[in-house]
Each structure stands twice: as structure tokens, then as C-alpha cells.
């Protein structure tokens, strides 16, 4: 166990020293602050909690930014270390390859968590002081968003490991990571939208569509957060369909966790075959 923690600690240390934590925090903070300032403008006065309005837009921001940051953090984890020759000694030590991956996962998860907590936390604090009717509900919504964003990020970190373990060059791993991001958060949604437009009354819209949302961890994350905010009028994007789901939208949060387990399991299997 102390070996796993040593690996995690090293990743956190590197993440802080190479300014990864700071960079990711600033990116999240700047975008979040923009949304906060827009949301608290005069036009943004609605019946709902001021912070809740902000959280609704932050949830959509998370879907794009958090997986990107997570993949950028993880694509280098194995391919890059093999490239630079730093993984050999770790794999020659008595630590199992599964432990190596778990240690890295904990470390990268903490790096991402720090960035999300700082970026959204500070932006949320600004929203709290600027907003209208801000109450406990808004703070709870923000807290939920932060926790689920970290979970979403952890999922994409695990998926990034699969990419990183499957190829030998860092460059290839990076290209693979970008492709995963593009598919999961852009192309997948576009394809679903296309499907909805062509068969708005058919089998696709009524039966398949909600489950297809559930399959993609990023969409499932948005479905969950929108449902949890409990403000149908505020929902945006594809998740607006959440009202007519054939299942409790709250269970959507299971999807990222399932993908997290799949990602970690698959990358461990691949890493076991890697010859450093």
C-alpha cells in the first residue's frame, strides 16, 4: 500500500511542480468566471437560486473541459514514461503493474481534483457574492457539481491510460487522447442529435435515445446534474430530454463509474503485456 501511495505522491508532486495543477485551475476558473458573470447579469434574474443557474451552465462547461484536462493529464502516463525510460525501474521493483496504475490514478485524480475544487470553488464564491437569492440549495448544487466533475475526470483519466498503454510513442498516445475527446464530447452528441432530427417520433427517440445518453459517461454526467438541480426549465442541450427518461435520471451517475472500472481494468491488462 505504501508503494501505491508513493507513486500517487510522486504524481501529485510532479503535477504541482510542472504547474499542471495551476494551469488546469486557471483554465477552469476563467471559463467558470465568465459563466458566473454572464449568469448574474440583469437578464439572469430568474425564480431560481442564482448559484443554481450558474451551476447549470457550469455542468455543460464540465462536459467539455474536464474530460479534456483529464485526457491531457493521462495520455503521457505510460507511453511517455516508457519513451523517456523512467518506467523501467518502477516496473523492475516489487510493485505489481496493477498497483503502479492505481497509484498513478490516485495521483492524477488528486491533481485534477485540486484543479476542479480551486477553479469552480473560486468561481462559485464569486457567484455567491454577486448572485441573487443565493441560498444553501445553490451551494449544495455547486458541491455536487464539483464532486461529480472529479468523478467524470477520473473516468477519462482511466480511459486515457488505455490509450497510453496501447501505443509506444507519446505522440500517438496524444493523438489517440484527442480523438477520444472529440468522439465522446462532440461527435457522439452530434450523431445523437442527427438521429433525433431524422426520427423524432420513431423508435430511436423513444427507446434508444435515453439509453444512448446513458452509455456516454459525459452525457450521463450532464443528465445526472441537470436532474439533480431539479430545474427542468434550466436544462440545456440534449439533457433537456431528462424529463421524459424511461429510468430515474439520478442513476445516470453510475455510467462514469462503470467506465472508470472498465478503463482501469483494460489498461491494467494491457500494461501487463507491455515490455518496457
Amino acid at each position, binding site marked *: 500500500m*505504501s*508503494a501505491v*501511495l*508513493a*507513486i500517487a505522491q*510522486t504524481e501529485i*508532486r*510532479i503535477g504541482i*511542480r*510542472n504547474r499542471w495543477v495551476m494551469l488546469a485551475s486557471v483554465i477552469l476558473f476563467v471559463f467558470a468566471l465568465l459563466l458566473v458573470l454572464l449568469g448574474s447579469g440583469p437578464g439572469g434574474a430568474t425564480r431560481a437560486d442564482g448559484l443554481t443557474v450558474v451551476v447549470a451552465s457550469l455542468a455543460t462547461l464540465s462536459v467539455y473541459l474536464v474530460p479534456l484536462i483529464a485526457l491531457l493529464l493521462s495520455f503521457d502516463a505510460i507511453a511517455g514514461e516508457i519513451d*523517456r*525510460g*523512467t518506467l*523501467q*525501474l*518502477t*516496473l*523492475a*521493483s*516489487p*510493485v*505489481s503493474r496493477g498497483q503502479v496504475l492505481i497509484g498513478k490514478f490516485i495521483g492524477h485524480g488528486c491533481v485534477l481534483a485540486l484543479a476542479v475544487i480551486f477553479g469552480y470553488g473560486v468561481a462559485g464564491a464569486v457567484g455567491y457574492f454577486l448572485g441573487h437569492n443565493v441560498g444553501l440549495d445553490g451551494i449544495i448544487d455547486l458541491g455536487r457539481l464539483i464532486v461529480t466533475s472529479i468523478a467524470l475526470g477520473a473516468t477519462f483519466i482511466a480511459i486515457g491510460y488505455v490509450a497510453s498503454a496501447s501505443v509506444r510513442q507519446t505522440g500517438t498516445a496524444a493523438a489517440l487522447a484527442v480523438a477520444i475527446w472529440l468522439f465522446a464530447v462532440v461527435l457522439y452528441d452530434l450523431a445523437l442529435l442527427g438521429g433525433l432530427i431524422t426520427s423524432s417520433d420513431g423508435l430511436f427517440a423513444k427507446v434508444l435515445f435515453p439509453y444512448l445518453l446513458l452509455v456516454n459517461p459525459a452525457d450521463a454526467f450532464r443528465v445526472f446534474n441537470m436532474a439533480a438541480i431539479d430545474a427542468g426549465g434550466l436544462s440545456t442541450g440534449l439533457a433537456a430530454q431528462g424529463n421524459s427518461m424511461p429510468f430515474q435520471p439520478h442513476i445516470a451517475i453510475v455510467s462514469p463509474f462503470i467506465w472508470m472500472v472498465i478503463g482501469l481494468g483494460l489498461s491494467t491488462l494491457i500494461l501487463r503485456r507491455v*515490455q*518496457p
Partner: protein
Amino acid sequence: MNSVLQTHAVSKHFRKVEALNAVSLNVAPGERVALLGHNGAGKTTLFRIVLGFLKPDGGSISIAGSKPGSKQARRSVSYLPESVAFPKMLTGREVVSYYAKLKGARHSDVLSALEKVDLVDAADRRCGGYSKGMRQRLGLAQALIGDPKLLLLDEPTSGLDPISRQKFYQLVSEFAGRGTAVLLSSHGLSELEARTDRVAILRKGVLVANAPLSDLQASANLPIRISVRSTQANVDRVHRQLGGSRINGVSVELECRQPHKMAQLAAISKLGAAVNDVEVSPPSLDEIYRHFSNHHDHAGDAK
């Protein structure tokens, strides 16, 4: 004998290239064995197989009784790769302490390992700024941690200055004295300066020699070189009497086998005043190495 490392008829090929061909090599506790060979002779491949990174195509290996790559084997082996690299953002102390934790070693080992390789002063600097020699020493510190039963050192002295190199061999002997088996690879014999108990030479994946250095010297049976210095006036006469070849106008160079050395020297001293000076040089370590690594010769195999 109970060897820490036992490899029996290990073979490995990559596509068409025969990287290792039936290599059998044992290293006993406390024994220092040098593995020599050109680039691509198979040294690193053998190390990677012993570490469990590669599966051999044939043959068997045991490390302190365990299979290579097993947890038990990895606990027994410490490795120093040929071009060792560490995360640039970490300090030397953090690097060593990281590997100490991975190996489950005591925390007090960290400082003593850094002391052994003379890195205490630089321990709190980031290792991205280390010189090649310092990185190599940090790699060695990492390998010394955790009481290894077998030290696998891949060209450990490359990039070290002569004083560091001397200290390195002292450390290796110290560990061997405590019962650690040491297998280190090197490009040539001259680098070792007879600081190992046994020399194994790989040539294109085949073990062509495996014996103590003195045995190799004897079995190579290379000629001794005798250089006779004469004067401009007498050099012709000396050359006629002794044979050999003339060099730089005043000297004659002769080659002779070990058993004929004394007779040859007697012949030279008979020439009296015609000879100014005599220099006798035994075959150099490099010549012996070249003899084994270039010629088709299995003289040392039986050992």
C-alpha cells in the same frame, strides 16, 4: 553451488536476429561477474530477460530460486539501466526515497545510499539539472537500496570520471563482500581493470568465454611484445640477429610466446652494448578482449 542467478541455455530471437543463443551463466552470492560484448552482442537482452521484461524463447532462468518477473524475483534484484532517467521535477532525495518505498526498504537507507554515491550535497536539487555522471550515481544509489541479492548493472561506469569509477568498483566490492551477487556489463576489459572475479564475453548472442581473467589471459595465449632499443649504428645488426620488425630507425620489435620469453631475453642480453633498453609488454586487456570477441574461439567455454 547455490547460485543467485542461474541461466541455462537461454535463447531469444527478434524476428530474424538471434539475440541470445543458448547462454548459460551462473552468478554465486558474493561473486562479481563482468559481462562483456560489443553493442548488440545481447547483454541488455539478457538483462531484460532476467528482469522478466522479456520472455525467452528457450532455456530456464532462476533468481534466488524464483522465476524472473515474479514478485519474489523482483524483490531480490536491483537494476541499473544503461541510460538511466528520472522525472526531472524530482530532487535526488525524492527519487531515492521513491524507490525505497517501492522496494519496501527502510527510510534510513535513503540517506546512506546517497552518502555512498556522494550525492548528499546535491540531494535537494532537482535531478533535471544533474550531469550524466550524477544521474548515473543516482541510479546506482537507487540500485543499492533494499539489500538486493543480485545487482544487475548495465554499463554502470559509462559517463563516470576515473575517480567516480574507482569509487564505484569499491562499492561493488563492498556489496559483494556482504554476499550480493553482481552482474555488470561493459564494453571492454580495460574498463574493468581486473576488479571482477569472472569475465563472461558475449559475441553475437553466444557466450564465447566465461572464466577468471587470469585464465582468459592464459587461454588466449597471445604473444608478448618485446621492444628493443638500439642505436642508429647497431640497429641493423640487432635486427639481423633477433628478427622481428624495425621501427623508427633505432628500435626492433619482437613478438614471442610466454614459454620462450626468457630465452628471447637471454638472446637480447647477449648483444651487450648494442642494446640500450628493453621493454616487455604483456598482452593488454583490450587485446585479450578483442581475441575473444572477434575470433571464432571457444577456448574459455568449458569453465
